[in-house]
């Protein structure tokens, strides 16, 4: 072998030392076996802690089951019937959750997009700014922040002192029926840094010449945002809309803290998952909670499917539809 070939050859033989006499058809050579071996933990988990529980809860939803006494009665559709026709708290939880999702997700993603647009292209202090915006999204889901938020918005608390300057009367924002949900939504919106980082990364990947040629054609800043940036970001927007919506539907910690482990006065912050917890784990009605879980699964699944379905009109993939 000529000496000049050595660097190229070494590049690949060095990190992959292969014994010369190794039989070519060893068992690991067969990628199928290797693939399934590597997937074994995941497949086990899929069967044992995802699929089995989903089916188990479907079966439970047709029963009246008390975990403590072990009593189990097959009651058909009675749980569903009661849920839809005889449980006003259930409908309250649906209402609270729908309002929470419908307001907090657009607010959070709108803020994320706006701040990403402002930060995009900044060289100076960009890393620090990005980090400072991102940090609340890591801390905001914690018990500590839920407690802080509640105290800050409490009567006589920090927020009331600030608002008092503008003549807004003092009130317990986090625990009064009229304003508790709005306070919860603000806490969610405060965590917009998560999607913001994703938008910023995606903006950085848009080729500069798109905007450049649009500008040469006389497009203003707003027009470039609408006709170049947003379409280029649309796949990522779809991703964040779906993920944030599913996450928002499951909001629990802050609602639990705001309502002292319940739904708060007037069940103002009784989110769906909080009510599910109260029925299943505080009330020990596992059958009823399972029925709630299944309705939740179907509803969230249908909404996700709907979002994906509408995406054909507003999501643009570079190089056409996959």
């Amino acid at each position, binding site marked *: 072998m000529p000496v000049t070939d050595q660097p190229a050859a070494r590049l*690949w*033989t060095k*990190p992959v030392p*292969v014994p010369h006499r*190794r039989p070519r058809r060893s068992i690991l050579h067969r*990628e199928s076996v290797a*693939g*399934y071996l*590597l997937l074994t933990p*995941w*497949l086990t*988990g899929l069967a044992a*802690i995802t699929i*089995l529980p*989903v089916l188990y809860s479907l079966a*439970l939803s047709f029963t009246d089951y008390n975990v403590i006494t072990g009593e189990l009665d097959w009651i058909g559709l009675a749980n569903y019937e009661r849920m839809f026709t005889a449980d006003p708290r259930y409908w309250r939880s649906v209402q609270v959750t729908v309002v929470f999702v419908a307001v907090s997700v657009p607010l959070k993603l709108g803020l994320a997009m706006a*701040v990403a647009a402002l*930060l*995009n*292209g900044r060289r100076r202090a960009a*890393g620090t*700014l*990005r*980090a400072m*915006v991102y940090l*609340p999204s890591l*801390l905001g889901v*914690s*018990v*500590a*922040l839920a407690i*802080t*938020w509640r*105290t800050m918005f409490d009567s006589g608390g920090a927020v009331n002192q600030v608002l008092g300057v503008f003549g807004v009367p003092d009130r317990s924002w986090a625990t009064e029926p009229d304003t508790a949900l709005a306070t919860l939504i603000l806490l969610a919106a405060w965590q917009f840094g998560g999607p913001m*980082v994703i938008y*910023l*990364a995606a903006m*950085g990947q848009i080729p*500069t010449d798109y*905007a450049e040629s649009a*500008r040469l054609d006389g497009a203003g800043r707003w027009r*470039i945002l609408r006709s170049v940036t947003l379409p280029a*970001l649309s796949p*990522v927007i779809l*991703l964040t809309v779906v993920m944030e919506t599913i996450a928002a539907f499951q909001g*629990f910690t802050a609602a*639990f803290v705001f309502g*002292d*482990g319940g739904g708060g006065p007037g069940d103002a912050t009784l989110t769906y998952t909080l009510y*599910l*917890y109260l029925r*299943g784990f505080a009330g020990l009605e596992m059958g009823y909670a*399972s029925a709630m*879980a299944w309705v*939740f*699964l179907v509803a969230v*699944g249908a909404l996700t499917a709907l979002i994906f379905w509408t995406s054909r009109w507003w999501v643009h993939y*570079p190089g*056409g539809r*996959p």
Partner: protein
Amino acid sequence: MSLPVATPGTGRLARAATVTVLVVVLLVLAYPLLWILASSLRSAGETATGMSLWPQEFTWSNYAAGWSGINGVGFGRFFLNSTVVAVGAVTGNVVTCLLAAFAFARLRFPLRRFWYAIVIGTLLLPQHVLMVPQYMIFRELGWLNTPLPLIVPKLLAADSFFIFLIVQFLRSLPESYDEYARADGASPWQLFRHVILPLSRPAITATAILTFIWTWNDFFPQLVYLPMVEDSTAPSGLHQYAVAGGLSAPGPMFAMAVLSLLPVLLFFVAFQRHLTSSAAPGRMAANLSRQRARR
């Protein structure tokens, strides 16, 4: 590369407006964090819930008072419990999600696309749907009041988000690496060990950091599986502390709130670069747009 911020014609005024908006946004974002810190340092005499970010008199005594915990169980115990859960979860997620992601991204085997569609499906599955039946299963296994329900699912790659994240990352590595390795007769294991693993550090780091932070913050599973005070993790211990009378003594409660956030904050400061810059999760997710088109 990024879009130009200012176009000709929008001059200093627009720049000033942009900076003003950013400063306001940063103030709103930072205020609660500074406030919680200030509240943890206020002395008992001062109104605990005031808006001020500067205590009239600084005191560390709140930290000592809070550290003793509730019913004789101190916060040291809560932090130890949290650490056990977090270390188990990080190990489990990194190992099993990386292996599964490698298989999905780099190996060819029957039904691969089908299984990967299932991964995406579970990513979209609201986890709260599973809580009742999972609870019953773990109860049958005698795992209540142990950290196993919080750790074992991670050992079974149940966090499909991280499989997705690592697959996204691995797909951004050139295919030619594999082809060279295969041409040299490398087995899948050698391909993994000598080619993919050394290149996967950004994805592994991101997975480890995010798993740590998310697990540390987790509250719901602890509430259900570890209800005893002595088994509590830092967040659930803090919650019990607040319920047991923290609101009447806010100083110590906020001191413990600060401590419960501290590991997340330290991790963030140490690894911030990995979370928000080039090879970070955001970037990996953003790659989605290009990769869907490529396939």
